[in-house]
């Protein structure tokens, strides 16, 4: 591999093999290909641009150091997202230790209003442009506690099963089901609320 063009046309597994032998240009190409996805995962979990940049870059550094351990059981992108997720979870745990329990968390423990909430009958997201919908989801995600947001992200975007999320977050499957339910209902409520405000 001597020219840039060859790197850009190479498949991920080939670039990984080259990077495992110490080829930093091959690794740079992998970063270029997947950086948006890795950053997006960090941003969705952390809700902070600066932290997401730091953690996504830290994930790439860790990946370089552990590249020899990557056996290709999953895709490189999946392996990378697991690294950034773990870094985000560590960071969120550190932050949690530094702050007191939020009202949202107490709500979850005591049942929360979402269990009793009437289902939103009308699809709150229909007739919305993709860009507008993204903005609304972004605003709604902001209002979730990090525990609920994390479960939602791991399930909806990382497509993890309940038991896998439970293992990753160190809690029971029941807690994961409850948190996911709460998070979805809250999202539905927030999106519907945004719709109603617009109609007034």
């Amino acid at each position, binding site marked *: 591999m001597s020219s840039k063009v060859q790197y850009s046309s190479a498949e991920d597994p080939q670039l990984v093999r080259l990077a495992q032998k110490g080829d*930093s240009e091959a690794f*740079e190409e992998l*970063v*270029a290909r997947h*950086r*948006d*996805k890795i*950053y*997006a*995962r960090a*941003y*969705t979990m952390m809700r902070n*641009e600066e932290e997401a*940049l730091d953690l*996504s*870059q830290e994930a*790439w*550094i860790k990946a*370089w*150091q552990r590249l020899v351990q990557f056996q290709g059981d999953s895709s490189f992108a999946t392996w990378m997202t697991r690294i950034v997720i773990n870094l985000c979870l560590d960071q969120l745990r550190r932050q949690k230790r530094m702050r007191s329990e939020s009202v949202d968390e107490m709500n979850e423990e005591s*049942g929360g209003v979402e*269990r*009793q909430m*009437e*289902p*939103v*009958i009308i*699809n*709150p*997201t*229909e007739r919305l442009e*993709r*860009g507008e*919908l*993204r903005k609304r*989801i*972004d605003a709604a995600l902001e209002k979730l506690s990090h525990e609920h947001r994390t479960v*939602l992200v791991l*399930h*909806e*975007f990382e497509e993890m*099963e*309940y038991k896998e999320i439970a293992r990753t977050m160190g809690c029971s499957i029941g807690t994961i*089901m*409850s948190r*996911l*339910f709460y998070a*979805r*209902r809250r*999202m*539905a409520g927030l*999106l519907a609320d945004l719709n109603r405000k617009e109609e007034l």
Partner: protein
Amino acid sequence: MIEFDLQLKIQALLDGELSESEAREVAGLIAANPEAAALHAELKNTRRAMAGFEAGIKVPEAREFYWSRISREISRVEQTNSAKATPALWQVLSGWLKPIGAVAAVALVGVLAWHQAAQTSDTLVTAQMDADSITFQNDEDGVTFVWFTYPAENRVANESDLNTLN
């Protein structure tokens, strides 16, 4: 209001987390209960709305700038690791020289003592070892050998005043 347990089962059905028989049972309940059906529709809509959300999020930095920080940090970490992994030459040598020196000293003392004993039986020969030096003394010949381990690791060697050796 439907039971919380059923609410969670409706969600589990949507997520494909139920066994075949459970899924059939919950699907039947949804078909028979408008409230359960509404909840199922809401969860489904929310899930659909979120699909593809992350695809719109991009790194707010140019490719080169983003990579340069990663590249710099990788170089720094690798330099630190290689410095840790490669000890200084003196550290490597001293690890070998100390035990070799001690063994050589003991061997020398042994050889000299044996040599003297073979030549004269009434010659006073003494050999003494301590932590930092080995002394061999032959009174008849007026010869004294003192073998210091190097670098000397005793209180005197650590004195800052060089005159202590005078």
